[in-house]
């Protein structure tokens, strides 16, 4: 800005400020500064004195400074030099800098720039100042109902990362200190000082180590990584307050601004917090551990004061506030102390970062603790689901996939190019390890391995509490269903996409794994009533019959972008979370269809109660599984024809590997059927066409799996029934079941080909 433009901007700010009801006046000063006299409403009895009990005046001079780049940046705001400093929401800074109020939650530049009109930005910034001052006047910057406001430590150069809860757990009733093993990353020349040209990032996993005095010790190390970067080992000293002479805990209810600049300052502050004994012990122990030893490099040490506050901290249940600092030791030869400048040794207030833990991820995700999952399939869907879970702090105990990452996978897979040519499962596990997970890895044939208990345990370790099948593989589905016992604990999920990624479904099995995924899939085929979804579902090229995304070569040619796949997969991940958070007895089918040319996606969720199961007589362990929807219809029909037998055709599918016949629909008896008290004769008129239609409508998935008829009395299969069963069996290759509904139960029978009783 030219001088002229700057002066205009300053005058403009003052003009706008004067429009604010709490601005009593002001003056443009030199150097792009503007003084505003702000009115501060305070209780009547304090107003009479012109100053509040906290030292805020009824008229406060506030200085706005226009920064270079204004109005692309916010003016900065400072208070008078003698403004009381014992407030939260004062930016950290030493006593020699002007107090700066923290006016907004977040970036002040962003706040200022959110208004198109500069006038609005100025006006609202002044409003924030007015509010800040009013709160400061009555000491209401901390709302004790919300909790204790931790000291502001935003934008500091030094960092100590450790688990806050572990540090708090170290605090005992009587005072003291503990030292934790830590690693550091120091930036700056060797002779540079923290607070000026050096900074450190110290990480501790919370392992307590006593300070030792050994020359071959590696408790403190330093090695040069790059020109101005040193890495090595160090300690973090955790210091907490002594109890009071009365035996009560030392509670610090006074807010101190963060203005520590030297070891002397820190010593005084430790005293104010009742931490002096632990603090001095820590320093002398460090001195002693280096007695007679030399290390020609500065080593940053973390010091964490644990301060007990009168109320819990905001967003925490604990009243212990953690105040981290970094100071450097210099074990030079012929030194007087490790702290070269004694009390003048620079100390940098540091920011505390929470260590990467599942708990941290859960907090940030606002997610509850969820059951540990085993992921079957590490393709694009599986990799994304696993990472969603891990980022939400959910444990991933195992990942399984037979394939390896190939270049084309990069179009949609969660992992990046550096993993190409490695095993998918191992690559995903590596990524998960960076998120503090330790998944077991299986990279063989999942469907084959599930069938044997030993290898099944590799895929589903004992710690699995939920299983997600993201393989989009029929054989894995059947192997999973077939190998799962009723008593097995983990809830099973199946997630997949089809129809060029436009459709996604999630199957959630029921309690005791009934309904299972095969039941649910049959139920989905039978009940789908949305024509668009049905068209996509049964499309011969893009539908379920074709394996879409996952294993096989299909994915090579299938064109769907990562955004579409991610969008659908993200929703499936949310549904898995929901199902785990609120488990119910029923199974569920969740299905989503995204519109082709708009951002809209329709999701629906259907609860599916357990299937009724009947052992099939005459078979070697086959089972008839009937959807409750259908079972209810059979019973209603039988009741409707109260005094004669009735019946119809059962529609469903069957699996030779699972030895199941699943019934999910019925066809009414043809019009030429006859019903009497002792016999139901199934007619034939139009029946063939009806069955064919049903088969076509279901995308050629469902067919006639047998017949049903009612018995008026509590009586099982009759010789006639057995003969009919034999006739049915002779008629075709797939098993045909005869179901008998008596007033109280179902009987099922089947006859082997050529067999008659």
């Amino acid at each position, binding site marked *: 800005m030219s001088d002229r433009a700057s002066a205009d901007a300053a005058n403009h700010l003052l003009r*706008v400020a004067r*429009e*604010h*009801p*709490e601005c009593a006046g002001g003056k443009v000063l030199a150097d792009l500064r503007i003084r505003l006299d702000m009115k501060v*409403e*305070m*209780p*009547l*009895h*304090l*107003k*009479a*004195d012109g100053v509040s009990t906290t030292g805020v005046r009824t008229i406060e001079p506030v200085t706005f400074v226009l920064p270079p780049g204004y109005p692309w940046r916010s003016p900065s705001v400072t208070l008078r030099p003698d403004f009381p400093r014992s407030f939260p929401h004062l930016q950290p800074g030493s006593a020699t800098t002007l107090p700066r109020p923290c006016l907004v939650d977040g970036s002040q530049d962003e706040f200022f720039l959110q208004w198109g*009109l500069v*006038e*609005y930005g100025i*006006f*609202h910034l002044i*409003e924030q100042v*007015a509010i800040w001052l*009013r709160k400061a006047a*009555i*000491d*209401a910057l901390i709302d004790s109902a919300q909790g204790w406001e931790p000291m502001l430590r935003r934008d500091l150069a030094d960092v100590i990362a450790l688990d806050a809860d572990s540090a708090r757990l170290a605090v005992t009733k009587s005072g003291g200190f503990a030292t934790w093993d830590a690693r550091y990353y120091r930036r700056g020349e060797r002779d540079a000082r923290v607070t000026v040209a050096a900074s450190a990032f110290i990480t501790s996993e919370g392992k307590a180590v006593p300070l030792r005095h050994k020359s071959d010790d590696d408790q403190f190390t330093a090695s040069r990584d790059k020109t101005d970067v040193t890495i090595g080992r160090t300690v973090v000293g955790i210091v907490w307050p002594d109890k009071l002479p009365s035996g009560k805990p030392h509670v610090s209810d006074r807010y101190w601004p963060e203005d520590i600049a030297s070891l002397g300052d820190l010593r005084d502050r430790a005293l104010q917090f009742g931490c002096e004994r632990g603090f001095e012990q820590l320093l002398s122990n460090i001195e002693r551990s280096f007695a007679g030893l030399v290390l020609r490099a500065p080593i940053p040490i973390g010091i964490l004061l644990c301060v007990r506050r009168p109320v819990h901290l905001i967003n925490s249940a604990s009243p212990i506030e953690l105040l981290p600092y970094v100071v450097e030791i210099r074990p030079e030869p012929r030194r007087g102390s490790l702290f070269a400048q004694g009390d003048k040794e620079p100390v940098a207030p540091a920011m505390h970062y929470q260590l990467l833990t599942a708990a941290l991820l859960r907090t940030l995700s606002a997610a509850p603790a969820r059951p540990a999952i085993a992921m079957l399939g590490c393709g694009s869907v599986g990799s994304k689901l696993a990472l969603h879970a891990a980022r939400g702090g959910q444990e991933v105990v195992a990942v399984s996939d037979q394939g390896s990452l190939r270049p084309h996978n990069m179009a949609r897979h969660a992992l990046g190019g550096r993993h190409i040519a490695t095993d998918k499962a191992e690559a995903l596990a590596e990524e998960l390890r960076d998120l503090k997970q330790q998944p077991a890895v299986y990279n063989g044939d999942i469907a084959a391995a599930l069938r044997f208990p030993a290898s099944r345990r590799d895929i589903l370790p004992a710690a699995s509490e939920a299983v997600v099948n993201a393989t989009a593989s029929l054989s894995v589905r059947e192997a999973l269903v077939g190998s799962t016992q009723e008593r097995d604990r983990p809830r099973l999920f199946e997630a997949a996409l089809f129809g060029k990624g436009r459709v996604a479904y999630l199957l959630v099995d029921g309690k005791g794994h009934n309904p299972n995924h095969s039941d649910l899939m049959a139920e989905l085929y039978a009940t789908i009533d949305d024509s668009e979804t049905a068209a996509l579902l049964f499309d011969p090229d893009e539908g379920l019959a074709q394996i879409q995304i996952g294993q096989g070569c299909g994915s090579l040619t299938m064109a769907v972008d990562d955004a579409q796949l991610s969008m659908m997969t993200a929703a499936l991940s949310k549904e898995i979370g929901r199902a785990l958070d609120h488990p119910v007895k029923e199974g569920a089918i969740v299905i989503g269809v995204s519109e082709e040319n708009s951002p809209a996606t329709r999701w629906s969720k259907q609860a599916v109660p357990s299937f009724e199961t009947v052992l099939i007589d005459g078979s070697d362990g086959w089972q008839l599984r009937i959807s409750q929807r259908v079972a209810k219809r059979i019973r209603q029909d039988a009741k409707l024809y109260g005094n004669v037998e009735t019946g119809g055709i059962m529609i469903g599918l069957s699996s030779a590997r699972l030895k199941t016949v699943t019934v999910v629909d019925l066809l009414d008896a043809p019009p030429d059927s006859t019903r009497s008290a002792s016999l139901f004769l199934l007619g034939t008129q139009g029946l063939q066409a009806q069955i064919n239609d049903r088969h076509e409508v279901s995308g050629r998935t469902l067919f006639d799996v047998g017949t049903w008829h009612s018995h008026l009395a509590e009586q099982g299969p009759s010789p006639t029934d057995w003969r009919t069963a034999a006739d049915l069996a002779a008629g075709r290759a797939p098993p045909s079941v005869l179901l008998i509904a008596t007033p109280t139960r179902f009987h099922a029978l089947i006859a082997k080909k050529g067999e008659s009783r």
Partner: protein
Amino acid sequence: MTASIIFFPVNNGDMTLATFDNDQQLLIDLHVRKAADDPDDDTPDVMAQLREHLKRDEKNRPYVDGFLLSHPDKDHIGGLVSHFHLGPPEEWNKDDDKIIIREMLSSPIVFRRASTEHVLCEDAKAWAKEARRRVKLYRDTKTIGVEGNRIQILGEDIDGKTDDILGIVVKTDSLLTSLNRVSAGAFEARLLAPLPKGDDEEVDQLLAKNRSSVILRFSIRGAGYLDKCRFLSGGDAEVAIWERLWDKHGSKNADWLQYDILQTPHHCSWHSLSYDSFSTYGEDAEVCESARSALAQTRKGAIIVASCEHIDPEDADPPSDKAKREYISIVDGKKDRFICVADVWENEEQPLQYDIGSNGIIKVVKSAAKAAVTALGIGATAAQARPHGS
């Protein structure tokens, strides 16, 4: 809810809402001028402002826990019939959406017949009728009715007219501690007037004219802390009453008159401070020292609120500029501690509000959002006709 006192901009008249920290609300007087109900008129729509602060009950009826009428003059009760439900609460109807008065607080003047001395306006008559209905319910059943049928009489009536309903009478000099049958400790109020009829006939004569103005000194709890705000409110009580109160309490109970906020009696009328007519005596008119003392028991930082139009020395009393100067002298000569409600409206476009919290009494500042609109000229293009074209 934060305890507060709100003075609505009604020019010469009173309309004050006290909200207590137990969420109960007491409306003191009402002055809705006809123009205030006219959306095209600039007169502040005080009923809309009031309704913003009211809650609704489980039947979605807006309500006040109590309505205290200091005395039945038009500038203290105007608008009652249009905006408040009168009659049995079960007859409330949704379309009118009038405000339910859960409990009335009234002086015993409702038992008197209108006379040449007491010409009652329609709203005042309606108030009296409703009060008599509620008193009759109590007299008939001797039990406290449901919300909407309740009443407390502030002061005993002459000739023992209230002797059979003492269960709902608060005697002068005693404390009013309940509102709508709730005694939560959120406030207490010393009933200083109406003064009971005494033996001194001369004084009675003098007092007759405005004997009935209710004077209460509230002590209000703020955020759970007792006695955070003392508020003295005295309707239109004039000099004789204040003189008498000081004579009665000045030596032993001056504390009963102490306040943080005083609402000037009778819209800053000179006649509350002096027997001398200003029009006759001008600047020579003398202040009645006892009356002044009754109105000068300030706590530290106390303020005086004049619910009246802008005070112009050239205009007729009330409001009186001389009274204003006298009041300013009471608040240590600090002009900013004498506040005219109309001026607040003029500057801030909002009612005058004080919040009562644990720290004390704090004036609510002008809403920044509202300030921004005017300060930054939003809508300025519509403020006047702008010529366009060549």
